[in-house]
């Protein structure tokens, strides 16, 4: 596969037939790159995708964001893009479970839903390219307030857009991979999920890889169903988020996955369930504690298998 990597100011092509896309400009009859990245060609459209840039939001992306302001009938959310996003009051799940009209009481109670500095997971509903207004929504049980967990940041281009961004890994860790590079690690609600011990795994064939991804998706769907029942009975409890009891083993597994994600980010490798599980499996095989995983020499050992897989 031919991949053309260009640097700033490098001439991509001198054909006059190419239509210039993002990241290019014309100079002296040549098509020159304005960013450092990889060239994408679609028929005659030539564009350059930068290797490292700010998150570029697309409709339908699952993102993790931090509430920065509480406004009159919406919240301002920082998603690490060039502009802040907005989460409207009409775009959240109101207590009672059923869809109802938002009243002025709801406007007064906004801080009972989401306060400043809280983390949420949401989906991008629409983007108005004229006013650059990014609208989010949390109209599903897998979105909403995030509590009892850890927050990590990685470069956004390492997270591929895939079927599901709300994942329950086989070692019992809940992972929300925001397309904007913001990642949330926690424990899923339902503890009776099929939790396989990582030492029983051999991810060597593609069928086993497929089985692994199917299992992760199955676990994730189970977790979402449990949240549904929670909401219909309670009022604001969905937003109050009582403290979850997390055992020492579960906490260590969260640390392991967190350090796995940072090891992959350090080596600029793509972050998706298979690569994370490969790093975790390697750490158990080599008897590396979570706290030692972030050492430079260990990171090289841990990411070696993933590098092989990428090739």
């Amino acid at each position, binding site marked *: 596969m031919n991949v053309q990597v260009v640097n700033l100011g490098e001439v991509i092509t001198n054909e006059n037939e190419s239509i210039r896309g993002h990241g290019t400009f014309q100079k002296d009859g040549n098509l020159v790159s304005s960013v450092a990245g990889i060239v994408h060609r679609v028929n005659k459209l030539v564009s350059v995708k930068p290797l490292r840039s700010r998150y570029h939001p697309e409709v339908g992306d699952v993102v993790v964001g*931090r509430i*920065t302001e509480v406004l009159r009938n919406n919240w301002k959310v920082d998603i690490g893009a060039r502009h802040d996003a907005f989460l409207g009051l009409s775009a959240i799940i109101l207590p009672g479970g059923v869809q109802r009209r938002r009243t002025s009481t709801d406007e007064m109670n906004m801080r009972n839903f989401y*306060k400043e*500095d*809280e*983390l949420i997971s949401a989906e991008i509903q629409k983007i108005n390219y004229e006013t650059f207004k990014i609208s989010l929504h949390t109209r599903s049980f897998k979105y909403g*307030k*995030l*509590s*009892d*967990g*850890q*927050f990590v940041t990685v470069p956004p281009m390492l997270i591929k857009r895939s079927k599901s961004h709300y994942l329950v890994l086989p070692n019992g860790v809940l992972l929300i991979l925001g397309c904007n590079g913001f990642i949330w690690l926690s424990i899923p609600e339902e503890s009776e999920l099929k939790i396989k011990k990582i030492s029983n795994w051999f991810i060597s064939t593609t069928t086993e890889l497929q089985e692994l991804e199917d299992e992760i998706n199955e676990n994730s769907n189970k977790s979402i169903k449990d949240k549904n029942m929670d909401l219909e009975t309670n009022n604001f409890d969905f937003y109050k*988020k009582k*403290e979850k009891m*997390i055992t*020492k083993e579960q*906490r*260590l597994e969260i*640390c*392991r996955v*967190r*350090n796995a994600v940072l090891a992959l980010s350090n080596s600029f490798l793509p972050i998706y369930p298979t690569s994370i599980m490969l790093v975790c499996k390697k750490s158990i095989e080599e008897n590396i*504690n*979570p*706290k030692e*995983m*972030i*050492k*430079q020499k260990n990171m090289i050992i841990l990411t070696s298998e993933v590098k092989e897989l990428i090739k």
Partner: protein
Amino acid sequence: MKNISGFERRFIVSGLKENIRSDGREMFDYRDITLQTGNLPQTNGSSLFKLGNTHIITGVKVEIGEPLKDHPNEGRLEISVECCPSASPEFEGRGAEDLNSELSGAMNKIINTNSALDLKSLCILERKKCWIIYIDVLVLDSDGNLFDSVSMGINAALSDVKIPKIRVVPGDKVGDLEIEVFGEEESRKLDTSKVPICITFAQIDGYNIVDPTIQEESCMSSRVTIAVNKNQNICGMMMGGTSGIDTQVLIQLTQLSIKIGPGLYKALDYMTNQNKTKLQQKNDLII
């Protein structure tokens, strides 16, 4: 990262109950230390120090100047710490001013004394000439725990410093004295065996942890920084934060810092020696 939600804070505190921090460390574990010395060839001594994601670069230059009036037979140090605006969002514009003066003041207090360095050995001519050591520290990237990182960076840079050999000769006019400076081959090293390093404890909801990350620093209620040296003496103590500390706890922390100190010095010495052997290998290859 000053912004942290109550839920993240709750998670960190409940983790401390089990002695597990966000990256799997225990309460009194330091992050990975990386050290390189001699990075800046234009200086007399330099170091690039990394503690996790906190990156510190230190440059030392020695110059001949006049001693202070009340210390006529001693040389002196001038330490200045600056936090780069790109190191953290809070350092933009003039946001880092207070932190810069706090760090510079703290380092001056613990290192610019006779108990840390033999300042008398820096004297050239009493009341007239002495060596002035200018130490400039730049915080390139901040992930918490700047006091410890800056002190260790300065320690490493000082161990790399080479002071040129000099000779005092009579000058052109009668009664005048001139100073002849020799080349680098005939330079001497400073005795840095008594230079202290800082150990910072952050108090979060009654739990004391060492080497806080920037996330943990935004949860802490108070901070105690204790300076210790190789002989396990306490050389200084600084406090920060919004709440106070129990006296019993303070005594326990000072005893803890004496236990933690040797381990850090060992790591620093090991890496300084590794750098020396690498440099020696490079020089051998050239010759």
